[in-house]
């Protein structure tokens, strides 16, 4: 039997290629995920390991102790004593560190990581590359920072305590340069080292956070109990004494909580890809075995027992799975190792290392075997049902058996209904039930999707039939439709694999775009203007109540607005006048007092101007009413009293639907005339912050750059500019990045499904060699034959993709709604272009996949084809 298994795999190797490819991709994905996890850990290890690289014992006091800040304190000397007293310890070094500011040559004032060294500096992890260890009033700098700052040994560095009230920048001489720090937590900051005495003199207030020691005999474990006792006797609550290896693992474990999370999330995507792999492999096995019915029957007539047939089939599956798995492992190792090498060299980060471990390989092999055995179990069972008589039948009678499984359909329907109900609750809850709503929507979506997949044997053939209709007028089209439905289960299985991938991808796209537009609408309500420049804040008048516009403060005018409008990245900009103020502005201006807490401007402009500079979806205040911005008045107010240019008080009703920028009011239309057309008194205008420039951005320039150029153009400062743009851009970037990453991860599943579509089509064409030849003999041209097969592929892939798009859109909208229940409005936004791209990829790939089998079929002469047994 073993000979037969091997012979079969070799004989049918071409048919198994796609199975191997699917398993390879699935297993490679999973294994790569695991290696990303181990590599992150090894990178963390390499990064923190440098600190301990020269020592044998690491003591972490683990208590926040400040040297010399009164109360119970520990000096570096005190903490070093137990180590020094130990007979086996030969050298000790106490490290204390903190973030400080320093003037570093060309770099100017920088935030730096300062480490105080007490003891034998040769134990410090960053090796000296030049010069010597620091003495009193000397300092060492890491090489990279020194190069960037243009500093060399003998130069001066000024250092000061960060944030101390009395900054005393003191010059220190560079005594040497060191290797760059690899610790991820301090990466990027220049690293400076000095003696603890120097640190004390400068009143840097560094706390001891670690002691390192070199020992002449024994190990860290031998010393640990005794040292721990001594440190506890000193008054430390939780000192740890460990070997460098233990310290590294402890730190890595602490830092990599998030890594495990990442591995799990990536693993979930790998899981989806593997589910698709199982479907594809199982279907391919079914098809291959159906085509080998006569061969299996022959074995049965020759005396093979059912069990032997089953074992033969599973044996073939195991060999195929093992081959696919091994190729996948090599691929995963290559990709992660290569990726790490590229990142490491491209960014010159030597501590980014590939973490090799044996267990991901073992997991990969086991999973590949499990996947194939799982996938081949059902086809193998079906194969054993072949009766020996089948071998004697003159020709294969391939008839579509319609055993769709009533139980399956009932369970599927129930799941869909339960899921739909749960999703309904998920989108109808209120703000208070948000967490449960999302959970309900998630579970509902999951249940209904499993239900839909179970109903695939009905849904997919039905969709194919509907889609084939328009092509039925032509005989080629009709045959394509009939062929696509010839084996409904085969079509359903392969369609399900594609449906799974497409649904998830479209769900993410629709969910993300809808969540974004909902978020944008919410933002627009709070911040109805992209960027808003104010001449001066109301607080600015505190120091100069008598001055017209605040001493030296800029008043914005129409020319400034012109400049802003002309900037790159600005769609439109206009000067928006303050047409009235709250009564407090007038009062504070008169009294020349500083308190203008309730002084807010009332901006006013006609609808046309406001439409051109405010966010698209914004609602403007109706004539006669006023829009209230956030923090300008209590949200319960129904009327606002303002003082216009005529000096009169006007009471305006609040328009709750309309928005105004934060800390201001907005009027438009007839209200402008109602408030009086006279200019506001300069003092009140100044108190309210002066006229503003409102700008609408076109998103071609980043928010940061745009703010900078507006500040330059209007001669104001960054505090004068506010608005929705920075938040909107940040949110968009996050959503886009997440969507891209998730789509890329899901694309793996789609690729595997497309391999399945291609392979099934190829096998079907082989199976129908005689029939295709008959059609050719009867007058079907080669081109018609190729078109017929392409259409068949397009119908199967198209039906799955269309169903996936519909389902994905529903799930995406439900998900987005349940996740944004706390926000008022729900703005549906469909990424039609991307949906079309998904459809085009699915159908295009399927049509492309039909090219080879179709060419093979068309090339065969009718005589040869008809002679095929």
């Amino acid at each position, binding site marked *: 039997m073993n000979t037969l298994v091997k012979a079969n795999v070799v004989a049918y190797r071409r048919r198994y290629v796609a199975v191997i490819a699917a398993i390879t991709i699935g297993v490679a994905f999973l294994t790569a995920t695991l290696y990303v996890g181990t590599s992150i850990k090894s990178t963390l290890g390499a990064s923190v390991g440098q600190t301990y690289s020269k020592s044998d014992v690491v003591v972490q006091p683990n208590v926040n102790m400040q040297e010399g800040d009164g109360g119970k304190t520990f000096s570096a000397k005190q903490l070093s004593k137990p180590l020094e007293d130990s007979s086996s310890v030969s050298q000790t070094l106490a490290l204390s560190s903190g973030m400080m500011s320093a003037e570093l040559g060309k770099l100017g004032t920088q935030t730096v990581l300062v480490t105080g060294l007490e003891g034998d500096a040769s134990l410090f992890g960053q090796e000296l590359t030049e010069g010597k260890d620091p003495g009193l009033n000397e300092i060492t700098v890491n090489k990279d920072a020194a190069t960037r700052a243009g500093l060399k040994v003998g130069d001066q560095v000024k250092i000061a305590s960060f944030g101390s009230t009395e900054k005393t920048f003191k010059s220190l001489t560079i005594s040497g340069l060191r290797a760059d720090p690899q610790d991820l937590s301090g990466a990027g900051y220049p690293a400076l080292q000095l003696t603890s005495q120097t640190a004390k003199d400068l009143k840097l207030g560094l706390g001891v956070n670690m002691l390192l020691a070199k020992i002449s005999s024994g190990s860290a474990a031998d010393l640990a109990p005794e040292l721990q006792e001594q440190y506890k006797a000193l008054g430390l609550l939780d000192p740890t004494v460990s070997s460098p290896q233990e310290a590294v693992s402890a730190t890595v474990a602490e830092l990599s909580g998030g890594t495990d999370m990442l591995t799990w999330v990536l693993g979930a995507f790998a899981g989806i890809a593997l589910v698709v792999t199982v479907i594809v492999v199982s279907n391919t096995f079914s098809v291959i075995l159906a085509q080998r019915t006569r061969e299996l029957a022959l074995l049965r007539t020759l005396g093979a027992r059912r069990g032997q047939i089953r074992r033969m089939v599973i044996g073939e599956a195991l060999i195929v799975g093992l081959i696919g798995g091994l190729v996948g492992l090599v691929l995963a190792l290559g990709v992660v190792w290569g990726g790490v090498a590229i990142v490491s060299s491209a960014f010159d980060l030597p501590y980014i290392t590939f973490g090799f471990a044996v267990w991901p390989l073992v997991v990969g092999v086991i999973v590949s075997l499990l996947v194939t055995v799982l996938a081949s179990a059902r086809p193998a069972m079906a194969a054993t049902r072949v009766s020996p008589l089948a071998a004697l039948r*003159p*020709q294969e*009678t*391939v*008839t579509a058996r319609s055993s769709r499984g009533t139980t399956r359909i009932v369970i599927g329907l129930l799941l869909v209904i339960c899921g739909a109900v749960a999703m309904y609750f998920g989108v109808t809850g209120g703000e208070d039930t948000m967490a449960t709503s999302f959970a309900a929507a998630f579970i509902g979506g999951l249940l209904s999707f499993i239900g839909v997949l179970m109903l695939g044997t009905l849904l997919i053939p039905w969709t194919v039939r509907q889609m084939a209709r328009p092509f039925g007028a032509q*005989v*080629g089209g009709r*045959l394509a439709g*009939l*062929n696509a439905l*010839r084996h409904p289960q085969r079509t359903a299985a392969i369609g399900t694999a594609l449906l799974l991938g497409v649904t998830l991808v479209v769900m993410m796209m629709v969910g993300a775009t809808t969540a974004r537009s909902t978020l944008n609408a919410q933002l627009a309500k709070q911040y109805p203007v992209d960027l808003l420049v104010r001449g001066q804040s109301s607080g600015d008048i505190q120091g100069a109540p008598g001055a017209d516009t605040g001493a030296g403060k800029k008043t914005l005018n129409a020319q400034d607005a012109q400049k802003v409008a002309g900037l790159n990245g600005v769609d439109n900009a206009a000067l928006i006048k303050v047409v009235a103020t709250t009564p407090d502005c007038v009062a504070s201006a008169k009294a020349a007092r500083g308190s203008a807490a309730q002084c807010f401007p009332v901006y006013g402009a006609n609808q046309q101007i406001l439409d051109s500079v405010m966010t698209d979806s914004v609602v403007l205040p109706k004539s006669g009413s006023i829009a209230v911005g956030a923090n300008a008045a209590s949200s319960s107010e129904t009327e606002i009293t303002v003082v216009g240019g005529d000096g009169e008080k006007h009471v305006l009703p609040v328009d709750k639907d309309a928005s105004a920028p934060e800390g201001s009011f907005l009027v438009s239309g007839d209200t402008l005339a109602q408030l009086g057309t006279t200019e506001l008194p300069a003092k009140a205008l100044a108190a309210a912050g002066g006229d503003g420039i409102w700008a609408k951005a076109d998103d071609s320039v980043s928010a940061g750059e745009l703010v900078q150029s507006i500040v330059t153009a209007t001669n104001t400062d960054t505090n004068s500019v506010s608005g929705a743009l920075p938040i909107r851009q940040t949110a968009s970037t996050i959503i886009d990045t997440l969507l891209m990453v998730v789509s890329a991860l899901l694309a793996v599943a789609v690729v595997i499904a497309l391999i399945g579509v291609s392979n099934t089509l190829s096998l079907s064409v082989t199976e129908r060699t*005689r*029939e295709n030849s*008959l*059609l*050719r*003999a*009867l*007058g*079907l*041209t*080669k*081109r*018609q034959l190729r078109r017929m097969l392409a259409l068949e592929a397009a119908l199967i892939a198209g039906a799955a993709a269309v169903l996936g798009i519909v389902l994905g859109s529903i799930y995406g909208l439900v998900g987005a709604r349940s996740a944004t229940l706390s926000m008022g409005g729900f703005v549906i936004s469909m990424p039609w272009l991307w949906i079309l791209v998904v459809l085009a990829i699915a159908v295009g790939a399927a049509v492309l996949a039909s090219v080879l089998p179709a060419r093979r079929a068309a090339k065969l*002469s*009718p*005589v040869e084809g*008809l002679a095929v047994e």
Partner: protein
Amino acid sequence: MSLDAHPQAPAATPSAVAAQNLTKTYGTGPMAVTALDDVSVAFERGRFTAIMGPSGSGKSTLMHCLATLDTPTSGALSLGGTRVDGLNDDALTTLRRDRVGFVFQAFNLVPTLTALQNILLPLELAGAKPDNAWLDELVRRLGLGDRLGHKPHELSGGQQQRVAVARALLPRPDVVFGDEPTGNLDSTSGAEVLGLLQRSAHEDGQTVIMVTHDPVAASAADRVVLLKDGRLAGEILNPQVQQVSDALAQLGAIQ
């Protein structure tokens, strides 16, 4: 399509199919096998001809070449008065579709289509409308009654072959080729199929060429062309079963 170009009187008309010096060689060099060796043969319109010969005599190759399913290595071939040697695959496919009918030994019908759809298939491929009176007549002759809506696997072997014959006859092609059309049938079903072919030749003036190794089937034809080792080895007009058997035995004996 020349649906109405079939004269009722067969004798005095030009050939429906004519081959001049037809040669077919498989392979090259010392491995070359000559399946047809300089065969010149003509088939009159409205006649039912059987091609016979021992296994390996080249009778199937001759039929495939005559039917444009296979291309001869050399020689000239005309079908319904049109030269067809040298035409490209698309032209040949169209020619087959419009002017040639086929009945194979087995696997004649497209399994996904019903009997009626199978009958209409060649016309649909050509985008032509069937002659409804002729269709009704054929269906009547078939004797399938209400089974026209059934799929092939729901029909018996004999019924399937009769459907195939009807499909070949419906477009009134220049010639209908049969490749062992009774090879898989019991004698009753075989006789029914042969009866249909005979009737179409005699009543409708349809040219029929059939390859067979069965003397009983061959005796249904008006003429038997004998083949041996790729060459013509004689012919029998108005053959009887015994005559054909003897001739075949003779061909075999000379071997």
